């Protein structure tokens, strides 16, 4: 995931970085923070969006490889939050592109953000749009939230070695 911090008050970014710390470890679910948009599968957006920040966000979206998921964390990114007013120049993420997962809260706790990632992973598994990005799951194996597809050659090699040792 890549974190794009737009014009927010910082509380949501601090809670997001607290997800990677020992208490709410999120790397055990397979989610890793990357440094550039080309490697990202999911963009996490915190904070409301300014005129200048919308240029930033569109520029990072151009650099990503499609398909990509968007997740909006915090009240300000979901709907404008406290800054909803007439004649105001702040808008939500849906002003630029519709997000896949919305996580409300001001700021949301790390537990709630991890729940949002779980929903994003399930959406990835269920949807047709993302099927070309991963291999087809094996029907014999038991299903889980994260489908791991084993290579047949690796399985055959392991079986033949087991037979030789016996």
């Amino acid at each position, binding site marked *: 995931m890549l974190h794009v911090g737009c014009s927010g008050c910082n509380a949501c970014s601090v809670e997001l970085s607290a997800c990677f710390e020992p208490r709410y470890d999120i790397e055990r679910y397979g989610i890793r923070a990357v440094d550039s948009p080309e490697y990202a599968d999911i963009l996490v957006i915190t904070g409301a969006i300014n005129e200048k*920040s919308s240029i930033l966000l569109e520029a990072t979206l151009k650099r990503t490889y499609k398909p990509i998921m968007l997740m909006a964390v915090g009240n300000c990114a979901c709907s404008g939050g406290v800054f909803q007013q007439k004649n105001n120049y702040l808008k939500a993420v849906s002003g630029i592109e519709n997000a896949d997962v919305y996580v409300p809260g001001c700021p949301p706790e790390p537990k709630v953000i991890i729940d949002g990632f779980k929903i994003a992973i399930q959406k990835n598994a269920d949807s047709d749009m993302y099927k070309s990005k991963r291999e087809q799951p094996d029907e014999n194996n038991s299903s889980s939230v994260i489908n791991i597809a084993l290579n047949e050659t690796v399985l055959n090699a392991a079986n033949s070695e087991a037979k030789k040792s016996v």
Partner: protein
Amino acid sequence: METVYSRVGIFDRSCLIDTGKLIEIAYYLASEGRRFITLTCGKEISGRYILMYHFEVDMKIVSYKVRIHEKDKIPSISLIYPSALLIENEIAKRFNLKFAFSQCGSQPVEPDVKNAGSKKRVIYSSSDEEREVLFGPIHPDLMEPLGLKLLLHDDTIIDAKPVTGYVSRKIEEMLIGKSIINANSLIQRICGRCSISHSLAYCQGIEELYAIDIPERAKYLRIIWAELERIQHHLSLLSNIADILGAGLLSAQINRIKEKLLDIFYEVNGKRYVTGMIIIGGINADIDRDDEIKIVVTLDEALSQIKLIRQKMMNNKIIRKRLCQVAEISADHVLKLGVVGPAARASGVVNDVRALNNSIYRCLDFTPVIVQNGDCYSRISLLFDEIIQSVNLIEQSIDNIPGGKVHTEVNFNSKGEIISRVEQPSGELIYYIKTGAKGFIENISVKTASMANFNVFIEALKGSCIDDIAVIMNSFGICMACLER
């Protein structure tokens, strides 16, 4: 309706002067060594504005008012006080005014202090080429967008120009016209890491203006929450610095301690960060004896672990090489450029709002901590010292806390203007509030510590490595949300 000017000497006197006399007064005050604080602008009638210049004289605030028309050219004081340039730019953009350098020459401002930055880097490069690189607004080391146009000579910075404006939400314009009680929810969200200090400055100002006496127990509780927030802010800066320097295990250990502090906020209030503890008239929720014991126990355990982490971090050879003599500022820079907070105290200059005579800390035993040698290493060791001092202050206030109520009733039946000052975790925070009839806000202006320290941060980048930008930014305590509120 009567106009009320301050009651306890925070806002001592304000007088009306002509624009011609402004430069004379600024020269006189600068020659005596007085500090420039901020500049506020208010609209009187369409086309006419009133500017107020605030200075600090003998620990009190003195202000001068200037009446202008929108087509006047106002003389700029930024050649005398370089810290005024940022504020003048903001006011010129917001109200369409023009500031002129005509009386002091036509050159743009260069601050008259040299040799800020690192001196120790030796460059082993074959060519003398300089390249221009954009240190982008989005960077994995930074939490908030900040653009820097850098002139590099093979990894060392020669010149830096900031590109800001990505985090501006125009909160001051949104607050005009709101009722006094409803403005609190917007003010807490200027910055999420120091939200208690912002609401504390606002509520203290309004209580001073309307002569509201809050109960004794509320004053001690405000000290406890403010100091807990200071510990949490310093720990988050330290864990960011340790993460960037490569000591991932240290940053994880520091965060483990910080989570236990956040549990205290969660159990009393239900939220970890933007809590809303401080309201006009006192405190939102009370704590009982169990909570007090829990605070003392967690802080005692945390203190011994923090001392161990300090030993490992500050005595490590690699970390010392990356931090010593990097981004050095002297006491001269502090006085001429108006630096506040831990960045000033690490260069040997006493600058702490909590030590003033009229702050709520006068009932406790408090002296500001000072370190010499204003480089990154001393600023970071000052952060550790302040954590230890905050734990001491919390224990003192829990020993002396009286019983009683936590909240009083509130009535707004006049109008007036006032300035209030509070020590934010990263420096001095100043609010100018002007209220109108029937309890609405007419004008408000916020000056944060990040605004005061930003110019020095850009100066101190010269001579340092491009990998150290985020470390230097965290050691100064600069928060972009506070800078462009």
